[in-house]
């Protein structure tokens, strides 16, 4: 497949592997201590799987492969959530074929968010990955409306996601395994929001590097 996309996917895998222990320790504090392990298993499989795609594979097919692979290898809560996010992103990519890149990415992110919300029946303020992705989408769209170029929109999204992760420290979990903790979940950042923020940052780095070339 497309070597740029391969670079992006490998970068995501490397990042997740590098942060595996950290993500796991965040999950150990308020969940069951496997988020990093789950994500690492998934992204290692993704990096292998996409290499089997034909060179001419386009974005929707690639995103769908990522989604299916995550669904079939991650397990736990994050598997269906991230998997659905990528499947919905694939739908949007296909529907938005022909749009300029910045608008296309906006639709992809929105599709991913809606996928997570549908699958997890979660909304913001429940201490989940939604608390990173929803503000990121809002910020991205604001950038778009303001006519900012793609890299800037993405940087705004990342900043919002980081703030979202910080915000998860201040709230009590009401979805996912951390919800069993009640008030004891306060003060801890959500592992899923954290991994989501990492992925956005990788994407932003990648886009910046592409622009530079």
């Amino acid at each position, binding site marked *: 497949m497309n070597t740029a996309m391969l670079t992006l996917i490998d970068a995501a895998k490397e990042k997740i592997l590098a942060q595996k222990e950290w993500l796991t320790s965040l999950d150990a504090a308020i969940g069951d*201590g496997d988020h990093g392990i*789950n994500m690492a298993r998934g992204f290692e499989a993704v990096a292998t799987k996409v290499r089997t795609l034909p060179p001419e594979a386009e974005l929707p097919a690639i995103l769908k492969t990522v989604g299916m692979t995550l669904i079939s290898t991650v397990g736990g809560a*994050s*598997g269906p959530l991230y998997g659905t996010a990528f499947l919905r992103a694939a739908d949007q990519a296909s529907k938005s074929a022909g749009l300029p890149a910045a608008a296309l990415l906006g639709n992809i992110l929105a599709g991913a968010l809606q996928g997570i919300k549908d*699958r997890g029946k979660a909304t913001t303020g429940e201490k989940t990955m939604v608390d990173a992705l929803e503000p990121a989408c809002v910020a991205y769209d604001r950038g778009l409306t303001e006519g900012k170029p793609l890299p800037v929109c993405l940087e705004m999204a990342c900043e919002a996601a980081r703030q979202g992760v910080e915000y998860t420290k201040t709230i009590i979990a*009401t979805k996912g*395994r951390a919800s*069993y903790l009640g008030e*004891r979940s306060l003060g801890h950042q959500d592992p899923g929001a954290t991994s989501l923020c990492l992925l956005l940052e990788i994407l932003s780095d990648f886009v910046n590097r592409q622009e530079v070339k």
Partner: protein
Amino acid sequence: MKKIINVPEEVVQDMLQGITAAHPQYVKQVEGTSVLVRAVKPENKVALVSGGGSGHEPAHGGFVGKGMLDGAVAGAVFTSPTPDQVYEAVKAVDTGKGVLLIIKNYTGDVMNFEMAAEMAQADGIQVEKVIVNDDVAVENSTWTIGRRGIAGTILVHKLTGAKAEAGADLAEVKRIAEKTIANVRSFGIALSSCTVPAAGKPSFTLADNEVEVGMGIHGEPGTHRETLRTADETATYLVDKILQDMPVKAGEEVAVLINGLGGTPAMELYIVNKKVSEILKDQGIKTVKTYVGNYMTSLEMAGFSISLLKLDSELKELLLATADTPALVQI
């Protein structure tokens, strides 16, 4: 990490092969999956599929057999299985009379099993699901995602399996599963942590004389920590909490499950049962059957849970029906 394993990445497959090698008369593995199904597929009966993360052995593969499950799906250790695996299980066990998924109430398990159900339904397989939520530890979580599913799940397998074995249709089998779930409550404590092979270090630590009350079966924190009390005090505390949540009147009948988490010796489980049986007797509650042992474990965690299942004549008959599985044989 001191474990009798080969490599952490292969514990689930090694274990599944060890199970089928030990019990070929009961179970076989669906090739290329982490699914165990009955060695001989029954004909024309509603099929039951359960599963979850590994590390809870003998749950769930040990309960595949006559009178209990038709298929069990094993996820990575403490991580719910993926939808494609559950889907493989559903396809393998369906006889045309439909499949009931017995899911423990964890976000991950629920989502993965639901996705599998959608996949199977798209193939035209009738799939229903029930969600077990017997853990009374997290009292006030009902307004969030509800209680967790723990050891009471085994009793759901037992009774629902008996109903399916008796030839009931999918709706009836599901009704029994839901009725059992409505009448089963569990509560446990942990005395020590366990180590997930892929993590390589204990999930948490407890001080020398400290216990975690209401510990989840994946090492999720419970309600609070306290100093270990005597067996009698602990049993009394746990049974009281269960009965507060699900009152049982004098004259009513129950089944009892004293479930070891993996690292607690049978001696201690029986010492707990002594007190539990006394409390129930004192309250005029009749114990119809008691299970004591490691049924739903958390690897090598020390600790136990108590489950009570309130019975009426219908549930009682299903409880006492025969079962023939690797981990539970009942004549």
